[in-house]
């Protein structure tokens, strides 16, 4: 039985064993092998490949970042253990992996630690070359400039050191705003110290003034700068700086002591005594405070001793100075006679020990110097106030002679006499 028939679509004979015509099947086959289908599969393949590659890349980057961190930590541990050579190798390895895997700031930190390890192992040339490379990449990077400045300073390359220090001060620190102020100030101070070491005092003082301007509003920092100014022989600027510190922190011990010292150097005994008294009081209060570590601080103790000494001198000066304004003639005479007695007591003791000749006072001063008692001498001097200055002049000369032959005075009263004399001689 012939069951084949004609396809109504294409007119061809459909063989008996086939259910449908080939023309009806062809599109399906063609569809499967058509370009569009293959392109669709390509797109699907791309999606899968992207997913796979993304996963692999993530694993890869994570692993490299982990390696960078672990090698860096290992390097630090080696450095702490004193194995600088091993640390160097570890840091190098860390840097290989850190490149392109860690944030730029972290990479720079690794690089700087590596440089410091190089310096610690005596590879300054290599460190410098590495830093120069970093500098070429980021000329404004303050940390790099600072390290370069230190190396240049160590190598005695003055121009480079100053250039890089300035680059560090005015460059970019990758830190918070407060930390940047601190770093900038520290760098200023480092440059100042460098300049002082090189005995370039004028430049150093200028640097200190710049430091003061850049100091963040922190009493301790202002006090630190003030102390440096004091050390650099700038008591007036130091006083300004201490006063700035005291405006922010009125009970800052360093600022009080520094301000007292500055006033003391400036010869303002009254102000000096006021600041120094406050400093002593503040120190005592701080010591009483629970958990205070001040009792153990040797530096603070030394400082406190100096504060006490200067306070005593300032107070003695205030008590002995016959030229202080607002005094009646009797008080002036009393102070002058007390100064004479104090000086004579020292010079006699000094002359007995060292065998020096005593100065002889002017004949006009005899009524005061040879009086039977101090009261008589005071009364006589009060009557002849024109002899006050010659008497005080003799006192200063005698005290100076004693200091010259027997060393600086230990008694604050003698020191005060010297101060008063110096001031009187200096001031017109």
């Amino acid at each position, binding site marked *: 039985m012939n*069951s084949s028939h004609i396809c109504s679509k294409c007119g061809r004979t459909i063989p008996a064993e086939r*259910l449908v015509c080939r023309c009806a099947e062809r599109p*399906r086959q063609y569809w499967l092998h058509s370009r569009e289908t293959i*392109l669709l599969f390509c797109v699907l393949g791309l999606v899968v*490949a992207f997913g796979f590659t993304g996963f692999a*890349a993530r694993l890869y980057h994570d692993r490299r970042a982990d390696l960078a961190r672990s090698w860096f930590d290992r390097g630090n541990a080696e450095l702490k253990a004193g194995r600088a050579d091993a640390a160097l190798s570890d840091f190098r390895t860390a840097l*290989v992996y850190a490149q392109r895997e860690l944030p730029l700031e972290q990479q720079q930190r690794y690089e700087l630690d590596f440089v410091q390890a190089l310096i610690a192992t005596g590879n300054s040339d290599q460190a410098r070359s590495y830093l120069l490379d970093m500098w*070429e990449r980021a000329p404004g990077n303050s940390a790099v400039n600072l390290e370069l400045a230190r190396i240049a300073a160590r190598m005695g390359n003055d121009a480079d050191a100053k250039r890089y220090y300035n680059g560090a001060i005015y460059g970019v620190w990758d830190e918070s705003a407060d930390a940047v102020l601190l770093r900038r100030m520290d760098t200023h101070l480092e440059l100042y110290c460098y300049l002082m070491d090189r005995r370039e005092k004028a430049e150093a003082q200028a640097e200190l003034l710049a430091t003061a301007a850049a100091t963040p509003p922190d009493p301790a920092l202002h006090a630190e700068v003030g102390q440096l100014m004091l050390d650099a022989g700038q008591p007036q600027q130091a006083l300004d700086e201490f006063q700035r510190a005291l405006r922010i922190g009125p009970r800052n011990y360093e600022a009080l002591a520094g301000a007292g010292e500055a006033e003391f150097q400036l010869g303002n005994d009254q102000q000096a005594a006021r600041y120094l008294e406050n400093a002593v009081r503040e120190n005592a209060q701080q010591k009483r405070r629970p958990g205070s570590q001040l009792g153990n601080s040797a530096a603070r103790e030394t400082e406190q001793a100096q504060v006490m000494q200067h306070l005593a001198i300032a107070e003695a000066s205030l008590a002995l100075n016959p030229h202080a304004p607002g005094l009646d003639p009797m008080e002036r005479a009393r102070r002058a006679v007390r100064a004479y007695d104090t000086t004579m007591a020292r010079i006699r003791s000094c002359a007995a020990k060292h065998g020096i000749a005593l100065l002889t006072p002017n004949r006009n001063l005899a009524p005061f110097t040879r009086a039977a008692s101090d009261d008589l001498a005071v009364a006589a001097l009060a009557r002849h106030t024109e002899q006050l200055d010659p008497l005080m002049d003799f006192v200063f000369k005698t005290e100076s002679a004693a200091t010259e032959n027997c060393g600086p005075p230990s008694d604050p009263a003698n020191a005060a006499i010297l101060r008063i004399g110096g001031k009187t001689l200096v001031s017109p």
Partner: protein
Amino acid sequence: MSEPPGPTEKSPESEPWSAQSNKPDVKTEEVPEWNPALVGKASKGAFAERIKDAVLDASERARAALSMREDNLFLLLSVIIGLFAGLAVVCFRISIDYTRLELFGSGINPSAARVVLVPALAGLLLAFVVLRIFPRVRGSGVTQTKSAVYIYDGYIPFDTVIGKFLTCALAIGSGQSLGPEDPSLQMGAGIASALGRRLHLSRERVRLIAPVGAAAGLAAAFNAPISAVLFVIEEVIGTWSAGILGAVVLSAVAAVVVMRLFLGAEPLFTVPPYSMAHATELLSYAVLGVVGGITSLIFVKLLRWVRARARRLPRWSLYIQPALAGLIIGSIGIRFPQIMGAGYDSMDQAMHGQFLWRTLVALAFLKVLATTVSISSGAPGGMFAPTLFIGGMVGAAVGTAQHQFFPSLSGSLGAYALVGMGTLFAGFLRAPMTSVFMVLEVSGNYSIILPVIISNAIAYVIGRRFQETPIFDLMTREEGLDLPSMEEGREQTVLLVENAMRKPVGLILKASDSVADACSRLADTTDDELLVSYNTGRWTRVNKSTLQDAARGGKGRQPLSQVLPSGRLPRLHPDQSLDLALRLMRDAPFLPVVHRADSRHLVGLLSLDDILDAYRRASILKSGAVE
């Protein structure tokens, strides 16, 4: 015997519709007689058929809507190829690094035993895999891509891609002195070839698709699309073809985008900023060109010599050659680990002045040695990275010397290293255009162009003068293939119309002349064919007898323009090629050669004989020069 029962005699349950082959008597087009059971079945079948038809029609319509011209498909495909190639290269780079980490550990100073043994043992495994499983992965990817284009109609078996991926990751990861760019190029070409074939592109398109993939692979490997495009045009395709340029660029860009997406946008090297200290510094770059040219020569000659000797060894030695190469490289690597693998980190270090000049020189020459033994041993991998390494070291060494002797003149050391890379690229790989653009692209600094051009040109000239055949062509010929040399192709003299044309002597008629006038002047010439010029710059020709016939036919007073047929002669210009002239010639006995500014001004005539004469003269001159 009874007849088998017809379908109408069977119960519907015993013959389900799904069984297609056992339905000889069921007619889907018509129902012969009324049978409720059968009619139900048939109508169900017809319904299914209609659904099927509808689905097929819909899909056909969708396909028609989606279908595109082959040109457009080619461009779309080039983007897809670029994406696939980029992904493959990303995975390849990751694989290399993972292999290195697994084999040598994560430290930069692995133990001496490991440094020596790992490349040697990996070499044994490599030899086995290459010889037994993936024999096609031996050799240069550039050469194989060229073979695919010029010999195999764009066919690159996909197992080559897999083989290259695996073996090169092992070879480079185990410290063989080879680079990942060449395999990346071939992987890209292989992917492109597979996709092109799968999409049933025409043979011409499949042939062109391999370079498209090659550009994508190389671009992703270098992270530099322009250089990759130029290299493929310069070394693989050989000509600037507008038809393929767009596809090559698209694929290269797509691959680089993928690469940057996964491995970061940073360039291959962190190049320090460049500025020229003084114009006389260019002299140093000229010196670098000379040194780079000589180094290229040493590299080529050594590679050729060692390869020739390695080929003479018995076949069994192929199984141990990569291991021996690994042993040599490992031994060098104990003291100079920088020469192992691709060496990008060391190039970066050299660029940033982290090596002394003695170390730089030692590294350059040890890398020449290591790369030579690696390539000659048959270990799969590329020569690009080693070439850049050697160039970088030579450049940095010259820069260091310059810093030492003329510190006031020297620019940055990184610039010297970078220019050195380009120099070796020009001198050794003999791709001068690519070398210049690669340096520009990697440095991102246009101002470096002058030193690059000077140095590269010198190295290229030295390379050409003392080693006529470029390295890729040498390797191709050693493999017994006769592929076209792109360099020779570039330097072939193109003969122009002006080399063949002769002066326009004889009678030239004007279209405004009357037929009688023209006939009266026919006695002045012996030529049968005469040129006729129009005021519009059009030219045509006329036969003597045609003119005489026209005169005889009473058209003597008519101008020639009315008598002559409307056709026109093609015009030539002196600067056009003879190839074009031949195409235009057809059956014309000669063609007018006219001035470009005034096409009425005839500057010469060109006939077929003139063209043949010109070619003959050129071949005589060339053979004389060769002799």
